[in-house]
């Protein structure tokens, strides 16, 4: 059975989902990693990456319903373990693993991403929360409106575009500053 991800209280629902997945799938994953000679920390790292992948696929509607979540998580784990083994490191296995969001890489290449992220986490927190609710957690706009206290879908949508404008302005400034720097 694949979990239906319910959005009425998103953070609480996520916690419940993560806990359930941990309880149902982590023992199998840990057993596999242990059998392959990995440590508890290896199992933890790989399982947490697998959960992120599972979650992003689930909210993106990319999960096939044929296999159970446990089988799915174990499948990703094996893939990540193999990859870790082959590459001899575990540098951000997610970057090459998740398809379908091909715009991920571009900001990563900017040397100022961390600084920018830090700035946005503080100065632009409300916008980042709203934008990630919509673009990352893929909550329907109606839910986003309720969650952030907007009268309706329409005003939340307007706010979404205002937030993009605001964040984009910061990105643009950084990007121009960087161009000056390399020239």
């Amino acid at each position, binding site marked *: 059975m694949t979990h239906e991800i319910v959005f009425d209280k998103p953070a609480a629902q996520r916690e419940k989902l*993560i806990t359930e997945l941990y309880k149902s799938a982590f023992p199998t994953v840990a057993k596999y990693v242990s059998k392959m000679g990995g440590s508890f920390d290896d199992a933890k790292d790989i399982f*947490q990456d697998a959960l*992120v992948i599972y979650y992003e696929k689930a909210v993106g509607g990319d999960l096939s319903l044929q296999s159970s979540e446990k089988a799915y998580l174990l499948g990703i784990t094996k893939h990540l373990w193999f990859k870790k083994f082959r590459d001899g490191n575990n540098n951000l296995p997610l970057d090459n693993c998740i398809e379908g969001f091909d715009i991920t890489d571009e900001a990563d290449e900017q040397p100022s991403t961390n600084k920018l992220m830090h700035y946005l986490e503080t100065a632009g927190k409300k916008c980042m929360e709203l*934008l990630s609710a919509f*673009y990352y*957690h893929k909550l329907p706009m109606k839910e986003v409106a309720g969650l952030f206290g907007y009268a309706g879908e329409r005003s939340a949508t307007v706010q979404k*575009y205002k937030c*993009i404008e605001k*964040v*984009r302005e910061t990105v643009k400034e950084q990007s121009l500053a960087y161009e000056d720097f390399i020239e």
Partner: protein
Amino acid sequence: MRTSLNEIKEIDDHVLKQAAPDEALLFEAQLIINPELKYQVLWHKQTLSLVQQYGRNNLRAEIEAVHQKLFSQPEHEGFRQKIMRLFRKR
């Protein structure tokens, strides 16, 4: 909506490939005519990429919080032992 917000909507629809076929075609044409628009699209993509990263960072923090709970709270003792048994020194 303000003109600038409508423009953002158009860029967003283009980036997420959600524009209707006729609008998509119009946007492609605008991209050719208006070089500035290319930059707008680029910054838009970078913005969404940051949002994606922000969301993922927060999800990771939530996952770690669950992990800490499961491996510290007394009510999950059985689960914890079951896991730890797998990693005894061989």
